[in-house]
């Protein structure tokens, strides 16, 4: 690894040792989970912490979504697998941590300074977390995503979002009308 990459990696590991989104660190995350368990004995908490820890693992979720795409919706999905520590990091793949923090642990091909094992190993502070590798969907950054909000199993609203990759800003619109997939072919 070059000196500049090593220096940047060290800087990033210092900054990101403290999760800036939720204030969790490698030392207080266990206490946070223990406190939530204690609290859940006296008051009702939604969603249940155990459910979130079990189900919100992106690896479990990815496997479920693969099955649903194959057996129910008959649709394609990007290929996803767990990484083996130290394996060669392929440029054209997206790296995702199994337990995310507000999108902090989704590393796209252009995030070159994060695509090394020094950085990845430094980001496994959440108990049980692992790194996954997923094939990169090249249309996604150009076409954006629809964020669909469901409450009680019903769609309440949908927002289409697009990120300006240069400015690192977002713009979005409430989705009212849709192309058919045949039109987009």
């Amino acid at each position, binding site marked *: 690894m070059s000196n500049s990459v090593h220096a940047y990696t060290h800087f990033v590991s210092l900054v990101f040792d403290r999760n800036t989104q939720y204030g969790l660190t490698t030392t207080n995350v266990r206490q946070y989970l223990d406190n939530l368990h204690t609290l859940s004995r006296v008051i009702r908490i939604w969603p249940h912490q155990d459910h979130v820890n079990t189900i919100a693992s992106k690896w479990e979720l990815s496997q479920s979504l693969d099955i*649903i795409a194959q057996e129910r919706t008959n649709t394609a999905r990007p290929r996803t697998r767990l990484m083996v520590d130290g394996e060669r990091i392929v440029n054209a793949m997206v790296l995702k941590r199994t337990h995310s923090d507000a999108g902090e642990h989704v590393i796209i091909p252009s995030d070159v300074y994060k695509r090394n094992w020094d950085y990845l190993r430094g980001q496994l502070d959440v108990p049980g977390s692992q790194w996954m590798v997923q094939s990169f969907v090249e249309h996604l950054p150009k076409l954006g995503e629809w964020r669909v909000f469901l409450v009680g199993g019903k769609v309440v609203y949908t927002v289409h979002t697009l990120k300006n990759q240069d400015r690192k800003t977002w713009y979005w619109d*409430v989705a009212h009308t849709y192309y058919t997939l045949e039109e987009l072919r």
Partner: protein
Amino acid sequence: MHRQGTLLTADVCNPAFGSVETRRRGEKQFHKFVTDTYDELHIMESKQLMARSPIGMFVRFDVALIVDQGSQRIMYFVNEVERTQTTTLWSNRLRAKSSTPPTGILGYTLAETLHRWLCTITDSSAS
């Protein structure tokens, strides 16, 4: 209608042309994909947890487009699933194209759904 192969140049949200029937078909395709995925995921997770999956209360599916390598057809896929209190609602209108925030309706709907959930788990006679 777009010609084939124009996917990358298209603004894929809110087409303002085409017949009502075409637009309805597009909306139906999108919502069928979302609700089919939701239904199956809710069943799978509830079996796994041996309890109701929390997505029955609230969930955000992030849906994107992918080209199937075999058939070269365009398809929807779920890129992410968000389900906790920290989920971004996209309610800040600063950079939004439309000025009406839809989060008020979400709030009322969530309050009613949460109330029903609380009644269910605190009252053993409730369904």
